[in-house]
């Protein structure tokens, strides 16, 4: 999930596809599914399984905290907010300030959840859709690559 603009219809289709097939793909690998990458237009689909052994910094398939009680649509639908560019990830507007979001926060589509600094320019990172923050993946002040996961959200379509 990137901030690359896409036709909404196609995006919905692809998300739907991922949800429906994730479990089956998970069974296909000897280790748990680690990442599903779907690019549209050129239709490049990448499926990556975890390396065997202790899990690293990869996002877990299930949220660590189950404090999101409202209409949990299940672990397979966890959404990742990924880095829209290479740079340094900051969780707050300035050093010492409160982070834009914390675990458990409900964020709206388009809401700022962090900053990527690249060449002294501060670029806002926005949530792609509505959801509740289930995990902070990238630590404050760390360098991130393009498309690297920053936060995990559980979709939240209720009120």
């Amino acid at each position, binding site marked *: 999930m990137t901030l690359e603009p896409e036709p909404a219809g196609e995006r919905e289709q692809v998300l739907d596809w991922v949800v429906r097939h994730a479990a089956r793909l998970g069974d296909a690998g000897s280790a748990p599914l680690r990442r599903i990458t779907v690019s549209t237009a*050129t239709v*490049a689909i990448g499926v990556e399984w975890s390396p065997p052994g202790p899990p690293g910094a990869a996002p877990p398939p299930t949220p660590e905290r189950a404090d999101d009680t409202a209409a949990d649509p299940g672990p397979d639908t966890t959404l990742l907010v990924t880095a829209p*560019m*290479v740079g340094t990830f900051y969780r707050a507007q300035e050093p010492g300030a409160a982070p834009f979001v914390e675990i458990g926060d409900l964020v709206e589509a388009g809401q700022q959840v962090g900053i990527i600094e*690249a*060449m002294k320019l501060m670029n806002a990172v926005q949530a792609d859709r509505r959801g509740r923050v289930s995990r902070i993946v990238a630590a404050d002040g760390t360098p991130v690559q*393009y498309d690297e996961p920053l936060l995990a959200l559980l979709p939240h379509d209720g009120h």
Partner: protein
Amino acid sequence: MFTTVLVANRGEIALRVLRTCREMGIRTVVAHSTADRDSPAVRLADESIQIGPAAPRRSYLNPAAIVTAALQAGADAVHPGYGFLSESPEFAEICQAHGLTLIGPPAGVIARLGDKARAREFAVRAGLPVLPGGQGPASGAAEAARTADAVGYPVVIKATAGGGGRAMTVVHEPGAFTRAFDATRREAVALFGDPRVYVEKYLDAARHVEVQILADSHGNVVHLGARDCSVQRRRQKLIEETPPPNLPSATIEHLGELTVRAARMAGYVGAGTFEYVLDERGACHFIEVNCRLQVEHPITEMVTGIDLVREQLRVAAGQPLGYGQRDIVCSGVSIECRVNAEDPARGFLPTPGVIEEFVPPGGPFTRVDTHVAGDTRITADYDPLIAKVSVWAPDRAQALARAHRALEEFTIRGAGVCTDLAFLREVLAHPLFRYAKHTTSLVDQMMSTPLS
């Protein structure tokens, strides 16, 4: 010498640069798009950083992403390869501003020589022969048409910011001039964001010859002989050869000396190429300068024994050139064939797809530069180059036979993927090419004659 070089390119040239860095004990960081995540350069690099999506505009053409990645990785230099940002004076300036050495000429030199109209003015001052044409960019269609009338048709209208054969229109008669002028300006804006164009005499049957130079920051400039690049499709090179066949060595030597003098005058540093066209009477005319490593540099390496990337790194690090002009001996003949994923029968249309079986040629005096292995996806996002097959032999006849043999044993197979392998062999076997009587129109001549 540098500690860490960031390679800001992809495909075979990323691998090419990485190889020499490795051999010199320099740490390599490969900046790559999502499409190149699993490429051999990424696999072999000491570190890799994903800088953007497949679209070049957001990855390999994105100065901010590349500089950020270089700083993140602690790189002290950036190698831009060819294409993408390799000839962008702005990128050179950004690198400099962030304390990164861009492996290439100084930003000012790129700006001066990369602008085609300015390069032409410089060439006139430097005493290089140029084709008849306008003085600098045309101020308008009427003035440009007067220039065209003065030099005589056919003429070519070129974007001053152009490159790669794009935003260039050949006009054969005055009636077509104004429309072509406007179209080229529009194309120049669309492609390069710069509407300036200029007019020059066009040679229908010309040979394309270029001189390779190396220059250090201590004022030493040498040339490494010349390459013939006349076999082109859509103004892009298919087969290159050094030394240019049927050209007296005195002519090559003279062109080399002229080029060295001009490069010194321009304050050139690094590896560079001065391009010329030769008319039917053998007269040379300056066309443009490429302020970077060329795709076809391997053939110069094969006849000189000099690793051009190594020299690029050395001079960028402030070291003097490892070779004086007298140390450079060109021996034998070398030919490069560009193997592309494209369909010659459909106007060389790229044919992206997944290459399933890939067995490159090997053996004596045969070099293959490729980023492809089995199960490599060739995407439509980038140049369709699959591999460069370069051969060397003591003489031209043996080099042609060797190139033919190498292409013949190259196996590339994949659903939907066409290659130009068979077409390249046809060129090698063509009588005009065999007798070295070919010009840049050879491919068109071949395509207009249906294959038997």
